[in-house]
């Protein structure tokens, strides 16, 4: 049995209450969402907050809904709910494909999208999905709410632009009629963090790529995306040659490091290979194949 260091605990009754608790306790407080990263880190004593502010009673942070031309996902929506969401599946198959390979059912039942985004693990799959879809987040503090593009959200590994007394409340994804999307992950074993993952959406119309987004994780892609590869594809026919060239540009944007999941050359190869594979399938899906 692993034993965390002593910690206080508070159960927030509203987002406002949670923000007030954060302001009261300063940067030694941590928000508890699904807890599947934070609690293991505490048990290993790699993290030792002085107080946990539990968000699990906040129904206002739950639910998936359409607002205008955006899908809005509450910060406390779990991986399992994303996996099962007909709304998300209708617009983007990337969600189901990514969620199927995130951790295991036990983690997915508790882990949340807000927690995943704010943990900002450099190998987080949902960060790649969010960047691929060019989503945005709503961040709330005592001064009000602000919106931020996900591609500007991360400051680096495990660091985001969410302030000490702020809470991420929503993640939003633009709806793109005709978009096809896909996600691919290579892992050493089911439930492991990715060796590398890639996700993409593509809108093909009139024989050319009208819009696309490419997300990558675990390979050191800045903001989990590959804008040069996207720019290259826009306006071009989605031929194998063009997709491969784009995948190469995506890999060129990556700076992975070697670890027990693999050496640098392999991870760069995967960045190329997986990007190519998801682009192929996203194109085929957009074309109605």
């Amino acid at each position, binding site marked *: 049995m692993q034993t965390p260091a002593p910690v206080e605990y508070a159960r927030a009754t509203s987002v406002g209450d949670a923000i007030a608790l954060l302001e009261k306790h300063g940067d030694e407080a941590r928000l508890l969402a699904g807890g599947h990263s934070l609690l293991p880190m505490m048990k290993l004593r790699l993290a030792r907050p002085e107080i946990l502010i539990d968000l699990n009673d906040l129904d206002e942070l739950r639910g998936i809904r359409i607002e205008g031309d955006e899908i809005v996902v509450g910060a406390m929506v779990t991986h399992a709910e994303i996996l099962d969401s007909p709304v998300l599946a209708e617009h983007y198959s990337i969600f189901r494909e990514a969620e199927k390979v995130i951790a295991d059912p036990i983690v997915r039942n508790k882990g949340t999208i807000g927690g995943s985004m704010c943990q900002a693990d450099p190998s987080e799959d949902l960060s790649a999905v969010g960047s691929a879809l060019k989503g945005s987040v709503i961040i709330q503090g005592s001064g009000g709410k602000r919106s931020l593009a996900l591609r500007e959200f991360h400051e680096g590994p495990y660091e985001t632009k969410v302030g000490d007394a702020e809470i991420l409340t929503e993640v939003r994804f633009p709806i793109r009629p005709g978009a096809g999307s896909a996600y691919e992950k290579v892992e050493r074993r089911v439930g*492991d963090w990715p060796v590398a993952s890639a996700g993409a959406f593509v809108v093909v119309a009139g024989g050319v790529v009208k819009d696309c987004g490419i997300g990558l994780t675990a390979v050191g892609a800045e903001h989990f995306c590959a804008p040069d590869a996207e720019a290259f594809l826009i306006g071009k026919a989605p031929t194998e040659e063009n997709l491969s060239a784009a995948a190469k540009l995506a890999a060129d944007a990556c700076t992975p490091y070697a670890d027990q999941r693999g050496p640098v050359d392999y991870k760069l190869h995967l960045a190329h290979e997986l990007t190519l594979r998801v682009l192929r399938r996203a194109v085929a899906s957009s074309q109605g194949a």
Partner: protein
Amino acid sequence: MTAVEEVPLSAAGNPIGFGSMRRVEDARFVRGQGNYVDDVNLPGMLHSAILRSPHAHARIVSIDASAAEALPGVVAVITGKILEGIPRPSLLGDNFAWMPTLSYDTQAVLATDKVRFQGQEVAYVIAESRYIAKDALELIDVDYEVLEPVMDAKMALDAGAPIIRDDKGQTDNSITDVHGNKTWESGNAESTAAAIAAAKADPNCVVVTQEIMYPRVHPAPMETCGSVSYLDKVTGQLTMYTTTQAPHAHRTVYAMVAGLPEQKIRIISPDIGGGFGNKVPVYPGYVLSVIGTIVTGKPVKWIEDRNENLTSTGFARDYHMTASIAATKEGKILAVDVDVLADHGAFNGVAQPTNYPAGFFNIFSGSYDYPDAHCKVTPVYTNKAPGGVAYACSFRITEAAYVIERVVDCLAQELQMDPAELRLKNLLRPEQFPYTSPTGWEYDSGQYEKTMRVAMEMAGYDELRREQAEKRTRGEYMGIGISFFTEGVGAGPRRDMDILGLGMADGIELRVHPTGKAQLRLSVQSQGQGHETTFAQIVAHELGIPPEDIEVLHGDTDNTPFGLGTYGSRSTPVSGAAASVVARKVRDRARIVAAAALECAPDDLDWELGRWYVKGDRERGKTIAEIALLSHSSLELPEGVEGHLDATAVYNPPSLTYPYGCYICVVDVDPGTGQVKVRRFIAVDDCGTRINPMIVEGQVHGGLADGVGMALMELIAFDTDGNNLGGSFMDYLLPTAVECPDWELGETVTPSPHHPIGAKGVGESATVGSPAAVVNAVIDALSPFGVRHADMPLTPANVWRAIQGNAIRVDMAIE
């Protein structure tokens, strides 16, 4: 094909003898009512935790525990310095800071001079709760002078390498065994070298040499190690609830280590949540809990957490092997030579019979008929955790089976010969048994070709090869891998096999109560093997009483006779034989009692299952239950029989038993990502008589999952700074159901001729035999890319790198 005869069923529907029946222990396990060491809570019990070294190699300059001692709830902080000051009345070192290993080396209980691996025990805190004990660890200030560690076993013997065991006055990192040997050789070096040289010179022969590593892995039982110790100062009795696979051997070791009188030590090994060899050694934590209760006068619990288990307790393998195989171009194997660099970590803590310092590795000549074999094993110290024989390895037969099965496949590739055909050409033939191998093992029985053909038939081998050829034309890479393994299990004959001087014979005791119900008291210790079920079935087979009427007791040294414990697949070959022998003693005694009751001579009685009857008059007879009551009655018994049916036995096995099997694995490899999917796995085992086929199949299932894990993902590697890179289940990957196919099991039954019921032991067969099948399948898939070998684990990265011609060196950090 099966040796399991139709047996009558009991009123409860269980076979009165051999056959599948549900495990009686499962009723408590599936209800969450098992009783593990961590479930033991004694009045006034204290808790404890161990401070471990963050460094692989460092000198301890000072330890300041004053802040920890001042923490409310802390009862005591013990350091190596304190233990050094406690004299020990023992031949095994003069103070408590050091203890003997099972290989006659010494190991630090708490480090005094240096730490020698990351995770080594440095200080011990006893406190009122586990939380407080862990909090106190953070308050202990240790000043380390960091030293250069030896992490690459290949550099351990280099001149100028840092000396790890300066405590023993060593001037290099070689290991010397109790016989004074620095290398361990077996077989005939000269004839093997000559055969290989001749083959090299002969245009009609080939010699293939391949470096093959079996990397360091960990048994990773779900229950970590731990103990609850209590020294009752009134009675002087030490009671120790502990996670051990060998309670009696541990009792004797504690008596020697602690200097306590052995009759005052009681080891209780309750339900054990998996062992796989991890719970054979005596660990510092166990000893510290004993010291803890001596110091505090209260019961002290010590339970490892997962990281501690993975980083400090007995690892497995870590063998760097170079194998050369010589053969004719027609595929007749001529000779095999294996050179091994064995990484034993910082202390030689290997648990194996004394005369076998490399375990049973020298059975590596395998299942094939050739005259010349030789191996040389060079053991070295490194700055890694000690251990080496664990993880269901049958005393390193995993390494042996892997190296021969891998190099035979390399030979097949060189000869461009189907690996099944190559094996069939060389398998030992039934008439060769008993067969003495080139390294001196006497295989008891086998029908190897028959077993292999059953496996090939089940797999549809020829059809698989056709499918493979067709897929390759489409750029799809499937692979078919074969492994044919032979194990020697059931250690072992007392004349040859002991651990720390304790001969490996097992005692047993069978009590038959007046109502005909029985208690069987075992020395061996189940960790999930189902002893409470199968041992009752053995007695049922011999006495004809229902298995549910036989209570199997084990795991409490005060209530069971002495024996060496459960590991190396020895329970059925040794204690299973003892159960049969003791039941036959009861049966023989019952015959005398029955004869007295039936007023005839014992020789006038015949046996049928469960009863003695008068020859020629089946109606006149007595059941075991009737005889049991008579044995307790006023019936006048012949001279020499005092009464009762109870009996004891000690079984000293005449030899090992030799289970074997043929495994075929089918994989699909994605060359773009390196991912391997195990599509099918066919396992045909011959373990002799199957006492409970359902339990045998369960054992095989578990071992096959182990094999998939080792072949594809499990690994403990280290970086050059000495950091353990497999210290949690996030890094040390165990396979899940997703990675395992539906196992396809088959069997042949070739009973052991020297075992009372012909059983051979099967607990480790699948772990021993399966890794080679998986690896051979992956390499077979990759052969169009010119790949001949890559080391386990074949992770996606390693497979992709192998395709690039640049497979990963697995024992060190990936760079």
